[in-house]
């Protein structure tokens, strides 16, 4: 085990080159990751939290050697992800969310045997190890079934089994609970906690606040390819703890009104959540003064429903951080 962080990214950047247009194609550059730096220590569960398109998957793919960084440097267990890609691959496990990544026509056991071979698990050790991981992910007894008949949750558990077959030191989980029902997602989160108890270092990407809050030791909030906040879930919440959150149900609010609310003194962010016929305005304030009356004054003429005030959550911290980008 090298001294220093298990995962380290320094000023990591990634630009995608593409084209627009059909006949006259114009080159287009998209900066997916714009100079991010972070470090993950041994045995830590580190979360990359951000909205869709923030650069989470691009970051993870650079760290697991599937993408070359445009610039910057990244190391996993002391090995450079560009120069020592093979050494990195031997020591990591990678699990991503969704339906893909499995040979559907074959059984779960066939899939695990094949990947055990690809990851150099010896023939002798394969049977024991496959039994262990099947037990761990709760698929024991279902291993002879074809994957095409598996539910999303079962597939995801099989993904995790595949990712840890070779007992890697570091596990990368890219939105592992996406699309999984609440009970299945809870079971997956228990499994992820189990990885930490087993001594693994885990990097998890997610856009679910409660998942990051309940699982992660530390979180980096990523938006538009940049880290906009980093710390423990408590520290991030504390960043907005001085303030208050006022939630206002309103019907038919337009962008000009929302902009006016944002311009009020003491308002740090305003988010709009669509809820059927109505919208929910989530207004974060500094808390130095009572702003309910001025907020309602700006909504004069609109039909206003319930108004509530509460303490900030991690989600509010996230919205405040991402909303400033």
């Amino acid at each position, binding site marked *: 085990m090298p001294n220093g962080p298990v995962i380290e990214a320094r000023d990591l950047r990634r630009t995608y080159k593409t084209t627009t247009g059909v006949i006259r194609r114009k080159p287009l550059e998209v900066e997916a990751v714009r100079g991010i730096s972070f470090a993950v220590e041994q045995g830590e569960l580190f979360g990359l939290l951000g909205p869709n398109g923030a650069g989470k998957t691009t970051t993870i793919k650079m760290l697991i050697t599937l993408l070359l960084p445009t610039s910057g440097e990244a190391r996993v267990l002391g090995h450079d992800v560009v120069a020592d890609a093979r050494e990195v*691959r031997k020591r990591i496990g990678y699990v991503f969310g969704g339906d893909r990544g499995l040979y559907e026509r074959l059984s779960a056991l066939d899939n695990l045997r094949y990947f055990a071979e690809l990851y150099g698990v010896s023939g002798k050790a394969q049977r024991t190890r496959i039994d262990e991981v099947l037990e761990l992910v709760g698929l024991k007894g279902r291993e002879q079934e074809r994957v095409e008949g598996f539910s999303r949750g079962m597939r995801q558990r099989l993904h995790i089994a595949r990712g840890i077959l070779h007992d890697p030191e570091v596990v990368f989980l890219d939105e592992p609970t996406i699309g999984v029902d609440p009970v299945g997602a809870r079971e997956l989160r228990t499994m992820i906690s189990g990885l930490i108890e087993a001594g693994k270092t885990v990097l998890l990407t997610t856009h679910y606040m409660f998942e990051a809050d309940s699982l992660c030791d530390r979180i980096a909030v990523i938006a538009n390819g940049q880290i906009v906040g980093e710390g423990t879930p408590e520290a991030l919440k504390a960043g907005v703890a001085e303030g208050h959150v006022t939630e206002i149900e309103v019907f038919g609010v337009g962008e000009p009104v929302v902009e006016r609310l944002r311009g009020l003194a003491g308002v740090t962010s305003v988010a709009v959540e669509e809820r059927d016929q109505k919208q929910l305005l989530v207004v974060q304030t500094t808390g130095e003064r009572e702003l309910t009356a001025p907020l309602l004054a700006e909504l004069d003429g609109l039909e206003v429903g319930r108004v509530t005030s509460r303490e900030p959550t991690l989600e509010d911290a996230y919205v405040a951080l991402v909303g400033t980008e």
Partner: protein
Amino acid sequence: MRTLRLLALGWLFHFRMLSQSAFDGFLAILWPLFFATVAFFMFRSGHSVGGLGPVALGAAVMGVWTATSVSASSALQRERRLGTLELLVAAPSNLATMLLSVCLATSTIGLYCIVATLIWARLLFGIHVPVAHPVSFILGIVGIVITIGSLGFLMAVAFVRSRRAWALGAVSEYPIWLVCGFLVPITLLPGWVRPISWVLGPTWGMRAIRAGAFGGNGLPDVAMCLLLAAVYIGAGVLLLDTVLDSARKHATLSLT
């Protein structure tokens, strides 16, 4: 040793996967028979000088090539669609071995084409293919399956880089039939085409099979066939690192 084990188990894994789909299997049964039927009618109505035996063998090998060139590209395309191509690349094992096992599995499916075409020719058209030297004949078949699988591997390297490279498999299907002399002797082709035929392993494999069937020494042709297979594998392995770096640079691995 580990490479051989991975190659063997990879071959078995992909062979089983290719054999799982009843629909694919049905097409694989019919496909070579259509080619063979068209070839038999064409040559019979043209009063083929050498008889229809060489045509039957040519039609049989056409099926192997089609099964490999098209299937190898679609196999890699399937890896992209399933999202497993990235997992294969992210694994610490040698990607070349994994790709070769996929291509050898597809060309093994092609073995069926040889058997089916010859039975079809016998039952429906009464074409009897003699086997003058059984050992040479079988070695020729093994050689052509290996060389076609290896050529498929060289093409598969391109499929790793670009999702559109599947077209390479489709485009190369008919020209190879022609240039490698499956149905028409390469001596009938323009002089400038012949060097292209010589660097293509299936040309020598076809010669070896015909020598095994109709008499003659096919062993030098088998040797040439295997030598070219080794060249294709070597070239593929050398190219793969460059291609893979390019795919990682241009983010093409996850494209479907």
